């Protein structure tokens, strides 16, 4: 909205006069709307408000640094990435601020690599107040202890580490191990190596004063050069106990946490120099953490930009000898004695559907109702093709979105969720609560709808039973319209919604394909998985605001739906349609 990449870029030109004044006025109004505490000054100050200078306008931190450090090597830049179109620059002297103002106000700087907008500057008396840390998203259970070691202790540790010869140089950083070696191909650690030296042992004793009861026996020291990072990862549940302890030395860094149930939910956490972090509980088991490879970080509290410097981290972990029993079993790397495996028999299928379909829909029903309205073309086309006063059953009718239309059809619905039945009934829909595989209707229907339901059944035999049940409801010659999620989501709305998420990083820790995995990328990597349902913060009525739920899905391969229908030996296939990442089958009972 701020930036149009198709516009010609008139680099090196300067706006002036009324046009420039009008542009600045607009930007200052924006400032007043978002950061009312900032006072614009009529006389020069050392602080500049600079509009059209954020990543929203296609301007990177590197470009900002390059431009402003040219005026003042000590210039301090404050940004609000993805939130504001403007930044602030604080200069060390009034003169430097004036020079920058005079040369940059209205100027489309030639150093800009993609933006075509002029910087619009104004002097300000102050910067926006720092946001209270409580307003920032932060993974639960994470603890950061500031000033855990003194500067003298830090120096001693660094002397010991940096003089140690046994550093292993990885792609993005150097590492050093004590106690046990860490195997980067399996992400586990078993092989004994150089014993933990006294310097680190003292540290372990100090950590135990903070309520840590484990005794770490695997130490990894990472040495990061400026700009180096570490990809987002979970510390393997079954390899290490809780917590993962880490001491930051030499410089500050922003660690990025990503919710394993929704990778668009990220939290930047400042790890100050000499601080200790305890990555434990939810922050250890459910959130991934990593450090982005980049030259600059932004302090999440006040927006201050700071350049990365060399950093050393000491990670202390305790090797786990018994299987993990954490409460975040969906994110665990083993199938929890079959509980989290892809169902192999009917009782485990029932367990999965109870916990990851039925219970979830009861919980999310109000939010589901707020968000489910759009209708698919192929389904509407099917309904339009039916003669007036046809008898239609909608199996898994949800909030009743296909029942409410006043369309000269005689429609009844059923749903497993009582809360969804109530929502549909309030809209004057005729509904009964029932299981998809045990329908309470007379078997004389002209047509049956089954929209986005079949993929919630967790075994082949249960899916087959459901299609048989749909066909049982039909009179001979009656037709059914069945839709399911496709494994191939190319061009689908869902994948567009997830565009700002990562490509699926294969969960390094998971071996074998038998475990149900939480889907956190764009592409489906396996057919049976748990898909997060995020109750948005904007939802007004919902007590589950901001919570994530996991629903079981079996996503269908090409031809799979047709084959399933034919396996019943009770129908012929009229057509199979692919629409927005869904397979839609129109079938006819013989």
């Amino acid at each position, binding site marked *: 909205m701020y930036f149009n990449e198709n516009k010609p870029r008139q680099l090196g030109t300067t706006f002036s006069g009324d046009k420039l004044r009008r542009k600045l006025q607009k930007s200052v109004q924006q400032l007043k709307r978002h950061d009312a505490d900032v006072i614009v000054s009529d006389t020069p100050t050392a602080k500049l408000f600079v509009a059209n200078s954020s990543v929203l306008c296609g301007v990177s931190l590197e470009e900002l640094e390059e431009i402003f450090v040219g005026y003042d090597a000590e210039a301090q830049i404050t940004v609000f990435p993805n939130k504001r179109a403007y930044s602030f620059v604080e200069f060390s002297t009034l003169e430097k601020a004036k020079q920058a103002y005079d040369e940059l106000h209205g100027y489309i700087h030639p150093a800009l690599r993609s933006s075509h907008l002029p910087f619009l500057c104004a002097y300000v008396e102050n910067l926006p107040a720092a946001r209270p840390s409580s307003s920032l998203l932060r993974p639960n259970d994470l603890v950061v202890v500031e000033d855990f070691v003194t500067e003298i202790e830090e120096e001693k540790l660094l002397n010991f580490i940096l003089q140690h010869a046994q550093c292993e140089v990885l792609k993005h950083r150097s590492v050093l191990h004590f106690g046990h070696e860490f195997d980067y191909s399996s992400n586990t650690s078993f092989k004994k190596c150089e014993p933990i030296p006294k310097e680190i042992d003292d540290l372990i004793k100090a950590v135990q004063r903070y309520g840590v009861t484990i005794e770490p026996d695997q130490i990894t020291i990472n040495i990061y050069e400026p700009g180096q990072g570490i990809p987002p990862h979970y510390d393997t549940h079954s390899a290490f106990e809780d917590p993962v302890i880490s001491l930051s030395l030499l410089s500050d860094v922003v660690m990025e946490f990503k919710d394993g149930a929704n990778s668009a939910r990220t939290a930047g956490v400042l790890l100050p120099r000499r601080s200790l972090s305890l990555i434990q509980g939810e922050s250890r088991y459910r959130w991934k953490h990593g450090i982005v490879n980049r030259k600059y970080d932004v302090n999440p509290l006040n927006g201050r930009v700071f350049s990365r410097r060399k950093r050393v981290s000491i990670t202390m972990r305790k090797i786990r000898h018994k299987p993990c029993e954490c409460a975040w079993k969906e994110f665990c790397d083993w199938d929890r004695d079959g509980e989290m495996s892809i169902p192999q028999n009917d009782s485990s299928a029932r367990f999965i559907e109870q916990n990851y379909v039925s219970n979830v829909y009861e919980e999310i029903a109000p939010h589901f109702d707020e968000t489910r309205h759009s209708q698919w073309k192929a389904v509407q086309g099917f309904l339009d093709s039916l003669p007036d006063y046809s008898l239609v059953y909608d199996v898994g009718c949800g909030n009743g979105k296909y029942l409410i239309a006043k369309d000269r059809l005689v429609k009844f619905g059923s749903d497993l969720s009582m809360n969804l039945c109530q929502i549909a009934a309030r809209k004057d829909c005729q509904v*009964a*609560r029932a299981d998809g595989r045990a329908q*309470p209707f007379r078997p004389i229907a002209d047509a049956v709808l089954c929209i986005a339901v079949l993929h919630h059944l967790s075994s082949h035999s249960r899916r087959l039973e459901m299609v048989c049940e749909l066909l049982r409801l039909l009179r001979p010659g009656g037709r059914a319209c069945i839709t399911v999620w496709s494994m191939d989501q190319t061009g689908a709305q869902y994948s567009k919604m997830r565009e700002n998420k990562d490509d699926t990083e294969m969960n390094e820790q998971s071996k074998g394909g038998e475990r149900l995995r939480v889907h956190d990328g764009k592409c489906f990597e396996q057919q049976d998985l748990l898909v997060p349902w995020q109750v948005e913060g904007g939802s007004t009525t919902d007590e589950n605001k901001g919570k994530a739920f996991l629903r079981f899905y079996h996503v269908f391969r090409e031809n799979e739906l047709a084959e399933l229908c034919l396996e019943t030996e009770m129908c012929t296939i009229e057509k199979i349609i692919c629409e927005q990442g869904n397979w839609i089958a129109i079938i006819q009972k013989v």
Partner: protein
Amino acid sequence: MKLLTHNFLSSRFLKNVATGYPLLLRVNEKELREVEFDQDFVQNIMPKVDYNCLVSTLMAIGEQGALPNELPENWRENEELLKELHRVLVKIEVIVGELECPESGRVFPIKDGIPNMLCQEDEC
């Protein structure tokens, strides 16, 4: 739940139940909803409605009123009868009550106007 809905419900899905129809209806609370008379609708829906089920259910809940025990041949032209059919099919709403399978005796509660036909996995 309207009596129209009841007319299309069956407990055939239960194990060892042959037709499960009609379901016996007991009513604890019902109300009369205002629904505009739609002659086309009644004329078109009646061929799908099981008239015997409708009449026996009306008798059971004390609502038979002016409906004859058998549908006369000229029902399509009889406006008064069409209006009465309209009343019993879509204006009566059962809010609280229960449904009973005529074969197995399994009872399904009706609450907030919604019949709860959910059964245990081993019942079907």
